[in-house]
């Protein structure tokens, strides 16, 4: 009993740590709809700056002054970022800010190592709170007790701010309906800046107060961002109270879960999120968003199939690409194969994102299922390469059909996060089922059959697969099925009135996209000769998103351009510099600022700009906040 109480307190301390960071993310998303991927990076910066300040000024004033000072400094920095970068992007398709904040995260991760050095840094313990308090015969760290108090205090202060000040009223109003707030004459720009700054302050504070418990290092950002996002989604987006309850729920389940299943931390938060979202599609305390008033832009013309000359041009380009192995060396040909494979992956993701407005944060699941399906078909069934690839696609199809059935009942960020939850569950199976998948050590020795063993033969195989996949997807977009998919995207209500249900159409599209991603995953296995759990990991999903966004979410096949640019750039940068993340992040930021409609959307930039200037709302079709 004493132990249960102590474990409960420990869980509460963890919950407070989680809540401080999560509240900031929830506030930022609620008002600005920015999916702030850099939120973990701001928390990391808070910890690093606090380390420097507390090392310089000692004593209680030095310690707490250092923590507050670091939070303020990082918050001001966040304000600068908002004004210099994000403010330029509010008119772009919503998710584009995810790309920008992803670029920022890459930059920060390398910068902190350059500035603070490669070693893990140990901050001071809180003066006067270094020890433990004896409670019912159990030692409970006094700093934990402080954290347990800090969580509700921060929650209370935020509540007062939101319910007792004019600023808070505006924030809540904007969370509910920001178009109406803008229509009532509130200057949205400064409201957004203030909210972003407040959110970053909470992140930096949340990172800084971990100083006495943690070692400051450059991986804090990614460790935090996913968990924090999960907490915000479980609680319901924009609901600070929901984030609080979700933090407690997740932390206590973890604290007691590990007593029963010592390895449960690997997957626990994602299982909880999946269960919550299946039962409550808007999280515990979230509400369905007000239906978007934006109508499909009157001047917008739907995409059309290629004209005959354009088809010829594309065919000529494919033919030109097919000559690559004739003049390039083995290395370039192999890199070319990899680029073609990720292009298939990006094209499959773009199909559901652009034509279906289904933004998946977990598309890697189907890439990885395809990879493991093909690998296991070789290892367990002894199949040759092509049948193994078919097995991989079947496994990906099965996975996408199963997970998709649940996911298509949701929309917007909730959809995205449920796909992420399923992807993480699939990842943990690959990671943990060592007997079959080899766990973290992966499966080895999976090289192509003799006829495709040479780099050039494999390149041609990949080229054929890529051309076929992209052609199939384009044909589908312009088929009656694709028209139906676009109809439920643009107006689910009108489509349903016409007898076109949203869920079945989206489910079919989701399963199909998963199958094509599975082909990419299978090819990737034979390119690398091996498969590892990271093929199902968050990193692969994020890469896919980045490629589609870079290519242009408003296009049909822009993701192919995005894939080529992103993959070629990252391979080249990684071979040229040890600071490839810094360089890649800067390039992404530059591209985001130069081409806010994506590389493939370059041509459409001029026309829509005038309209969007009048209504800074949203791209109706493709926001993560999308209408239900």
């Amino acid at each position, binding site marked *: 009993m004493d132990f249960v109480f102590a474990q409960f307190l420990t869980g509460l301390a963890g919950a407070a740590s989680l809540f401080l960071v999560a509240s900031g993310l929830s506030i930022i998303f609620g008002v600005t709809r920015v999916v702030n991927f850099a939120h973990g990076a701001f928390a990391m910066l808070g910890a690093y700056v606090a380390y420097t300040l507390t090392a310089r000024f000692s004593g209680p004033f030095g310690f707490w002054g250092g923590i507050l000072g670091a939070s303020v400094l990082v918050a001001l920095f966040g304000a600068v970022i908002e004004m210099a970068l994000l403010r330029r992007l509010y008119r772009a398709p919503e998710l584009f800010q995810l790309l920008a904040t992803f670029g920022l995260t890459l930059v920060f991760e390398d910068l902190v190592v350059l500035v603070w050095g490669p070693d893990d840094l140990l901050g001071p313990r809180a003066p006067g709170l270094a020890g433990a308090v004896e409670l019912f015969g159990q030692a409970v760290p006094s700093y934990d007790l402080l954290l347990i108090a800090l969580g509700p205090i921060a929650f209370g202060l935020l509540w007062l701010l939101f319910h007792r000040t004019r600023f808070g009223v505006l924030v809540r109003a904007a969370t509910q309906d920001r178009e109406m707030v803008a229509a009532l004459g509130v200057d949205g720009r400064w409201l957004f800046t203030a909210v972003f700054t407040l959110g970053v302050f909470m992140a930096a504070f949340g990172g800084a107060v971990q100083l006495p418990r943690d070692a400051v290092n450059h*991986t804090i950002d990614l*460790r935090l961002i996913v968990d924090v996002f999960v907490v915000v989604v479980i609680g319901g987006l924009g609901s600070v109270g929901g984030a609080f309850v979700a933090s407690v729920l997740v932390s206590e389940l973890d604290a007691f879960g*590990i007593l029963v299943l010592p390895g449960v931390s690997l997957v626990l938060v994602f299982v909880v999120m999946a269960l919550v979202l299946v039962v409550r599609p808007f999280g515990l305390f979230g509400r369905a968003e007000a239906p978007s008033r934006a109508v499909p832009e009157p001047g917008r013309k739907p995409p059309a199939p290629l004209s005959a000359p354009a088809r010829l041009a*594309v065919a000529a380009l494919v033919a030109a690409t097919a000559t690559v192995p004739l003049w*390039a060396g083995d290395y370039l040909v192999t890199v070319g194969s990899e680029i073609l494979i990720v292009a298939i992956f990006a094209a499959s993701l773009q199909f559901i994102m652009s034509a279906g407005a289904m933004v998946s944060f977990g598309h890697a699941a189907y890439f990885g299922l395809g990879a493991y399906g093909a690998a296991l078909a070789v290892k367990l069934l002894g199949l040759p390469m092509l049948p193994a690839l078919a097995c991989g696609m079947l496994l990906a199809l099965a996975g996408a059909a199963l997970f998709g059935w649940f996911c298509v009942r949701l929309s917007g960020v909730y959809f995205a996060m449920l796909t992420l939850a399923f992807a993480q569950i699939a990842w943990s199976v690959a990671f943990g089922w060592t007997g079959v998948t080899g766990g973290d050590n992966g499966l*080895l020795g999976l090289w192509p059959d003799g006829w495709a063993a040479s780099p050039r033969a494999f390149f041609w195989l990949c080229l054929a697969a890529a051309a076929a996949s992209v052609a199939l997807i384009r044909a589908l977009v312009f088929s009656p099925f694709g028209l139906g998919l676009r109809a439920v995207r643009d107006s689910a209500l009108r489509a349903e009135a016409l007898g076109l249900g949203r869920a079945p159409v989206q489910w079919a599209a989701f399963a199909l996209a998963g199958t094509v991603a599975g082909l990419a995953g299978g090819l990737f296995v034979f390119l*690398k000769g*091996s498969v590892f759990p990271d093929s199902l990991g968050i990193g692969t999903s994020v890469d896919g998103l980045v490629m589609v966004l870079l290519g242009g979410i408003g296009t049909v096949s822009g993701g192919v351009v995005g894939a080529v640019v992103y993959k070629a750039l990252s391979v080249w940068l990684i071979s040229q510099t040890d600071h490839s993340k810094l360089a890649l992040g800067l390039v992404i930021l530059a591209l985001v600022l130069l081409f806010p409609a994506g590389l493939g959307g370059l*041509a459409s930039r001029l026309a829509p700009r005038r309209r969007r200037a009048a209504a800074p709302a949203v791209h109706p079709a493709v926001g993560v906040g999308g209408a239900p």
Partner: protein
Amino acid sequence: MTGRARVSRRASAAGLGALAVGLGWLGTAGAALAADIKVGEINSYSALPSFTEPYRKGWQLAVDEINAHGGIGGKTLVVVSRDDAGKPGEALTAANELVSREGVVLLAGGFFSNVGLALGDFAKQHRIVYVAGEPLTDALVWSAGNRYTFRLRPSNYMQAAMLAEEAAKLPAKTWASIAPNYEYGQSAVAVFKKLLSARRPDVTWVAEQWPTQGKIDAGPVAQAIAAAKPDAILNVEFGPDLVKLVREGDTRGLFKGRSVVSFLTGEPEYLDPLKDEAPEGWIVTGYPWQAIHTPAHDAFLKAYQDRYHDHPRLGSVVGYALIQAVAGILRKADSTDPETIVAAAEGLGFDTPFGPASFRAIDHQSTLGAFVGTTARRDGAGVMENFRYVDGAAVLPPDADVKALRPKE
């Protein structure tokens, strides 16, 4: 024609165009250096700077020393280094580049076990020798071992054997384990359990915790282990996870009155960051650089400190010894033919800052050992004391067992 149609058409056309441009761009990268003999080196530079920075300093020191003393049979040794960002897939791309564009005669490096295994498999497929530095998984030279793969550092099994020998001397009868939830942690605990039970059949295991690597929730983990009241604890956590575990465990009195046996904790990479909170009296493997006084280590320490004005970490020794071993292999082979290089490497003896070591012909594992001792605090920093050097050859299983483990070729 509509606006959107124009976009999508351009998008696909631009995609293929960009592929061609991208390839052309890559084609200009990595112009050949005027090198005599090239070795490819791959490591997780951006993912794990706390290990790889000292590691890079170590191998750079070795390269300069080798070239100052006549290089490899009169040729200059050039190491072409690449980052793998901690991902096996990127490591394979880099390996491909190094082999097919840079024309390296041999590959070396690696930190993560899965990167090491991927490179080992690449080596087998492409018939090029790979000398792993850091990857610890037993599979690398045993169950997934192959003709072209060698490994420098004492493996998981070897470190477990060193620690189990010490642990068996403890009076502790009930044990608990804390290890990261992936192959490295799992196999470290499994081997340690097996070897300890062989010496001490009376030992029982009363609790285990498997936090996610890099994401330990140290408070609940420490509390859960403490609740089982074990006599002794086996720890396999390292890096930031170790710092959190030590802090939470200390505050909660988890380590008070208990023996702790811990993998790798004596390595400066993991011990230094703990500063004045370094644990005391833990039985660890590691590298007590301040207190090793042998001619080989003195010379290495002096050269390293003169050049970098910093003390070496274990990574520095790994990088230094790795390139010294590679140079030894290439000198003896005097050829770029992979089969000749394999033949030269098998059984080859080489000098390291820890003393002489050799690559065993039977499984290509080197006999480089490690220091086993107990942790202590001195002048506000963690150190190792009462340590001894355990030669790797002394803790490897019998040849018959090794033969059974390795696949037939």
